[in-house]
């Protein structure tokens, strides 16, 4: 049985994709600059906690993440991401730390876009940095750990090996 509405919808998606203009409002940053920004966002947040938290890198967050692909499977754009465990948080202080992160991000003028888990003591927060649209995240993990993360927008590839 023909499902032309389904097919037409896919066609619409593909046509719109082809027509969308390039993002006009930001100058493109390099991967190095993006990484610096990611690190800075994370470190400033950790430093704003009381007491300031230490950071432990999560290794698998280091490779650049393909975020746009050609038709035949070649990654064309990448986002730069880092995740760090927050270490040295006081004993029962997960929710407190999360609230401090939330307040810090708001004070910096970033947008909080979602939260979850505060009621169970397992908080998570997603945000977007202003003015440059990096994704910010704080997330609870099993074992009562928290990690902080930042992700750049989708960037063109760089010639240099990944940061």
């Amino acid at each position, binding site marked *: 049985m*023909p*499902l*032309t*509405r*389904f*097919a037409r919808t*896919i*066609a*619409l*998606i*593909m046509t*719109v*994709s082809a027509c*969308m203009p390039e*993002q006009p*409002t930001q100058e493109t940053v390099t991967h190095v600059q993006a990484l610096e920004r990611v690190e800075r966002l994370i470190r400033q947040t950790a430093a704003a906690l009381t007491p300031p938290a230490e950071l432990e890198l*999560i*290794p*698998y967050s*280091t*490779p650049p*993440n*393909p975020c*746009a*692909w*050609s038709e*035949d*499977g*070649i*990654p*064309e*754009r990448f986002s730069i*991401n880092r*995740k760090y465990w927050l270490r040295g948080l006081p004993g029962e202080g997960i929710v407190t730390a999360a609230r401090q992160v939330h307040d810090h991000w708001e004070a910096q003028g970033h*947008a909080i*876009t*979602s*939260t*979850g*888990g505060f009621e*169970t003591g*397992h908080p*998570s927060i*997603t945000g*977007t*940095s*202003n*003015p440059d*649209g990096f*994704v910010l*995240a704080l*997330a*609870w*993990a*099993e074992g009562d750990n928290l*990690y902080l*993360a930042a*992700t750049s*927008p*989708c960037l063109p590839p760089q010639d240099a090996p990944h940061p």
Partner: protein
Amino acid sequence: MRAPSAGEAFRRVALLAAEHHTDLDTPTRLMVAHAWVGGGAPHFAAGLATHRGSLQSALALALASLAQAAARLGAPPPPPPSTSTQVPTAPATHGPFRGIDTGAMTALIAALEAAADRLGTAGHRLRAELAALGLPLSPAWTVLRAAEWTAAQCPDLRRRLARIRGSARWIPAGVAAHDLFGTYAVSRDALLARLATGDQAALAQFLALRDAAVPAQVASWWRRLPDGVRRRLVTLPGFGALNGLPAAVRDQANRHLLATEKARLTAELSRLYGPGALASITADLRHLAVPAALLAQDEAVRLLRNIAMIERALALGGVSGHPPAYLLSFDLTGTGRLAVSWGDPDTAAVTVTYVPGLNTRLSAFAGDIDRARVLWQQAQATAGSRTIASIAWLGYDPPQISGTLTPGASVIGDAPARRGATELAAFADGLAAARTGPGRHVVLGHSYGSLVTGQAALLRPGRLADELVFVGSPGVGVDHAKDLGLPADRVWVGEDRNDPVAKLGHFGRDPGSPTFGARPFPVGRNLLQNAHSSYWDVDSASLRNLGRIVNEQYQELENPPALSPLPQLLMPQFGQNENIGNASH
């Protein structure tokens, strides 16, 4: 006087019937409750059901016969008691990654032995009562045959159970069932014996089988093979596609095949175009660039590009904190077959299998492999010490739509999904059979892949997965979540409100609609052209929520707030990640 004797005989046999008509109920309930499906379990269950039914009928027949005799002699007895009972026919819902329950198996055998004893006694008594009145003896023979059959099963089952218990390893339920009920199995042993010799035709035949019990049989067979035979088999072309083999073995066999194919295609190119052209092509391929236009149409070049893509997609395996990448399935022919697991699905506490949608084909599958990778990262990051395996499964032929579509000219039905469902069900059987410990299985279906997933769930009620997640789904082929063989609260739907594919509901009811009965989880909202592919954006609330579901952290789902009602189509959202371009829809 005969009349009192007939009446008294009736009362005695009524008591006997009351005591014995349920003698085979306990073993039957145990078979149903544990739903052992491996090996010959269905045949055994069928034999048991036959004898149970005939036992109850025989008792009813004997009572009727006695009642008639008593009535003829003038002393009508009370009406015969009921001798039939119902046992549940549907198995208790349980997931695929469960180990054997030796307690239940022991209980089964003990119940059979007890029943055999009791039925033997009952049959002899019944024979005596019927013979004393000159009535037909066939009901008694039926009861005695049931006793004999029941008794005859026990020695073999006991021996097999002892062997299972003697094994130090954790054994998946399906494999153990195969071991326990092996006597009853439809014999594929001859085919496996030929396969063990490296018989390519036998492999092809085995690869064509889709019966649910086959992977368990493969797992059981592989365990008993000597090392030398195993070493030879991993070099047999296509061997890595066999569901039920350990992940490490599939990986080894498929990588061997990949290397062999690469060498063969390279040699062919060298022969056709000379070593100079080959060097230039190889350099282009290292950058995944399209080699010189003249050669771009060459089939060998196309296949070598696919190989290069696969190798590049696997390159992060074991690097920078990533787990090893297991190549579970690999086939270059046709639209291609590829299944990659980040992390070992045989040992992981949770395995999540991602089923992609339209336009997925081997050459563009790198994006889907990467989606599985970022889902692995996200789930592992919040999982604590539990291990995660995240699989990208391209094991079917998705419908392909070309970029220039004429409305009305394209037909997308559900036939590819039904074929794909058979493949996915067999793949899931293979995952279950290869396990070395208990675990959870989650299947994530995207777009048309969600229809494949729904149809596969129908093929394996309660056994495909412990949890189903649908994102961007145009329908999954049923109208209610509970039709999928799982509790409705284990069926999840994520729909970006700008994802038009998710609104279609063409294949059954839209799973995002409240009447479908699945649990919605928030995935945020993206630009129209991104919405269908944005569920995996790194560190997005959507990806994190997928990770939460994988980890059963339901209280920790994040809820992105409703955004502005302004039209989003032509207004880029300030600050959103750009995700232009699509690996698959």
